[in-house]
């Protein structure tokens, strides 16, 4: 069953370039580095982000590089026409038009069905070298398990190189965190016999990329559980790639989420805005069946939670919700018919499989019932019928459809005086969120130059984000803003210099403001000319607005046992 895999267990015959890289690494004097290794590398990058963040300054130079690096469709002629690899082994320090870093594909179904992007590529292809963000999973014997681009089997030599780098450092009694090579950052994550590596020139922070690798590992556990480690104990040359057959689309979709879904770095989930009474109706019916041996019952619309109920003492981690939703939404077969599938919730119990019953009520809305019983299918099928009846009777599914189109938070709707606004509109009506008239400011975003915000309730582990207004309408701009938020998040939570309470930062693309208290984290983007006092005022208004709407935009109250 094993694919042809020429690389031996250790001492792989390294290609010249990788040998060079290894040599470069050893020149850094790894053994002496540990305490300084981390900071020295970051500062070398002239990114200046951490220093400016700790100063709380509003440097414009800090991110100047970022936008260039982020432009996927840059027609960077130099990179394309430059076939000769540099010392790092990568042509094009900045990526090129070939890269579509996590872009949704023009025809995602077709591409994701086969699951693999550009399967013909390998590490000898210049197009492969120009990709801006690679993800690899490999075993500790150097066998490829997953690669975002190219055919894993053809990347055996490259995998062996990565394995050699990791074991080179480990042999000196140390652990490798990352390596900088020009604009490229190579981030390593070792999880027992499984190694995860990200090679990126997207200017994302080490912490951010490491968090993404953690989620990749979580996704792998969701599919296989941690007991897969036993296979490596029995046979170090175990070929794990075959066990992951057909899951390329799941990983691709997760990688895509890294550039659009704030849940991937906030470690919180988001809810579909609904009138309190509607959500209560949904929660009541889930609660009804939670007593019949169901561990978790989730009603979701795409990536947003409508309601979730856990058996007593069982809590669902936001990362598990993210990975479960990603798995379900990226596997086309769930939409075709009701399904029963073993899955593992890595934060709940990484060792054991649960059994998931999944059924889509419509294209977007689906229920997931999780149980420990492998023979529970017919019981869960009956439960689902019960849920479906109750949801139809109480019009929940219709309200969900409406919310999907109408209930989004728009910065243009930010009330001038939130408290009085909500007093005149009873919070029971879900339409209220969007019923306010659109002001003339729509064309330029919200009041005070507000473009967008994300509000995370720390207590609830939930976040809410506004829709993108017209100034940030295209994909590239959205991705750019998310990456800026990710950096902001990383700098605010930086263990060395933080945690910080507020940060105000202005560059040529936006003014960003972050405010962290015991109760919430607020991330807001304004137009680059926004006034600071005005921006702070707007943030206060956003917080008040969110509090006024909390019964509609959060899963709130006792209806969910575990929260």
């Amino acid at each position: 069953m094993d694919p042809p895999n020429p690389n031996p267990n250790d001492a792989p015959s390294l290609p010249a370039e990788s040998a060079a890289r290894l040599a470069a690494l050893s020149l850094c004097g790894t053994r002496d580095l540990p305490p300084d290794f981390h900071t020295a590398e970051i500062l070398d990058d002239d990114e200046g982000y951490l220093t400016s963040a700790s100063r709380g300054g509003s440097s414009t130079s800090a991110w100047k590089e970022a936008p260039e690096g982020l432009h996927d469709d840059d027609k960077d002629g130099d990179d394309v026409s430059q076939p000769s690899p540099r010392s790092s082994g990568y042509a094009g320090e900045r990526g090129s038009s070939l890269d579509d870093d996590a872009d949704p594909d023009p025809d995602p179904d077709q591409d994701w069905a086969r699951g693999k992007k550009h399967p013909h590529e390998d590490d000898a292809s210049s197009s492969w070298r120009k990709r801006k963000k690679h993800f690899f999973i490999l075993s500790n014997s150097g066998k490829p398990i997953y690669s975002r681009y190219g055919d894993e089997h053809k990347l055996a030599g490259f995998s062996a190189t990565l394995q050699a780098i990791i074991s080179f450092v480990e042999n000196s009694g140390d652990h490798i965190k990352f390596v900088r090579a020009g604009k490229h950052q190579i981030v390593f994550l070792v999880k027992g016999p499984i190694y995860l590596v990200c090679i990126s020139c997207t200017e994302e922070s080490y912490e951010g990329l490491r968090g993404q690798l953690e989620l990749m590992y979580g996704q792998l556990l969701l599919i296989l559980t941690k007991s897969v480690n036993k296979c490596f104990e029995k046979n170090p040359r175990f070929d794990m790639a075959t066990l992951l057959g057909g899951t390329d689309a799941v990983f691709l979709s997760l990688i895509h989420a890294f550039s659009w879904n704030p849940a991937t770095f906030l470690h919180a989930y988001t809810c579909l805005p609904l009138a309190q009474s509607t959500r209560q109706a949904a929660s009541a019916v889930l609660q009804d069946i939670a007593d019949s041996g169901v561990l978790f019952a989730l009603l979701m619309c795409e990536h947003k939670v409508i309601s979730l109920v856990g058996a007593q003492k069982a809590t669902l981690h936001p990362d598990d919700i993210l990975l479960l939703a990603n798995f379900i939404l990226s596997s086309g077969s769930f939409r075709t018919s009701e399904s029963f599938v073993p899955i593992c919730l890595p934060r709940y119990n990484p060792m054991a499989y649960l059994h998931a019953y999944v059924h889509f009520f419509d294209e977007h809305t689906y229920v997931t019932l999780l149980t420990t019983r492998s023979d529970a299918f017919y019981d869960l099928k009956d439960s689902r019928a019960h849920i479906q009846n109750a949801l139809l009777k109480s019009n929940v599914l219709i309200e969900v459809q409406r919310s999907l189109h109408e209930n989004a938070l728009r910065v243009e709707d930010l009330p001038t005086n939130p408290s009085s606004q909500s007093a005149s509109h009873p919070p029971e009506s879900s339409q209220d969120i969007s019923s306010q008239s659109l002001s003339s400011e729509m064309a330029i975003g919200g009041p005070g130059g507000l473009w967008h915000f994300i509000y995370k309730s720390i207590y609830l582990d939930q976040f809410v984000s506004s829709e993108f207004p017209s100034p940030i309408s295209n994909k590239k701009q959205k991705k750019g803003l998310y990456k800026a938020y990710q950096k902001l998040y990383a700098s605010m939570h930086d263990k060395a210099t933080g945690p910080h309470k507020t940060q105000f930062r202005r560059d040529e693309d936006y003014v960003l403001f972050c405010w962290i208290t015991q109760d919430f984290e607020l991330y807001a983007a304004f137009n680059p000319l926004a006034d600071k006092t005005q921006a702070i005022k707007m943030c206060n208004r956003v917080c008040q607005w969110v509090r006024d709407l909390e019964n509609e935009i959060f899963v709130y109250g006792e209806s969910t046992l575990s929260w």
Partner: protein
Amino acid sequence: MGCSSSVPARNTGGLNTISNDSSPDASSKDLRAKLVLLGDSGVGKSCIVLRFVRGQFDPTSKVTVGASFLSQTLALEDSTIVKFEIWDTAGQERYAALAPLYYRGAAAAIVVYDITSPESFSKAQYWVKELQKHGSPGIVMVLVGNKADLHDNRSVSSQDAQDYAEKNNMFFIETSAKTADNINQLFEEIAKRLPRPTAS
């Protein structure tokens, strides 16, 4: 053959039983049959089921995860009505250990291979052996060579498959979920071979 109808599998909720739970007003000619599809990944198990149940063919193949459940009713010429409860299993290796969950208590099993893939034919033989060892006694087994429309790339000859099927007491048919060729015939043939309730 008749014994399979008296082997309800407790741990699947008993719904796989063929006649035990028929309601009082149900015609004695109504049959319920649990049917399972097995075979390598990518041979077209889901396509066969979706062609039979919904009359559709989706060229953008979607990998089945775990197992999908569908049902379809078939009326035979002798006015017997058969309700198939179909378990379409995933062909991926990581789910192989789960197969008993689905074929246990099944009245019929469709083992599918792709006529353009000798590997999938070997895998089919593996499933046949597994069913012979662990399947319900008297289970109706069918060997299906799918993707018959790709006959230009055929690499498993009909004769070889036919011989193998005969040796193992199976019914053999070549189908194309894409063109719908032989799909209904496949399920009709299974329905005909299902054991009928002995007393009513």
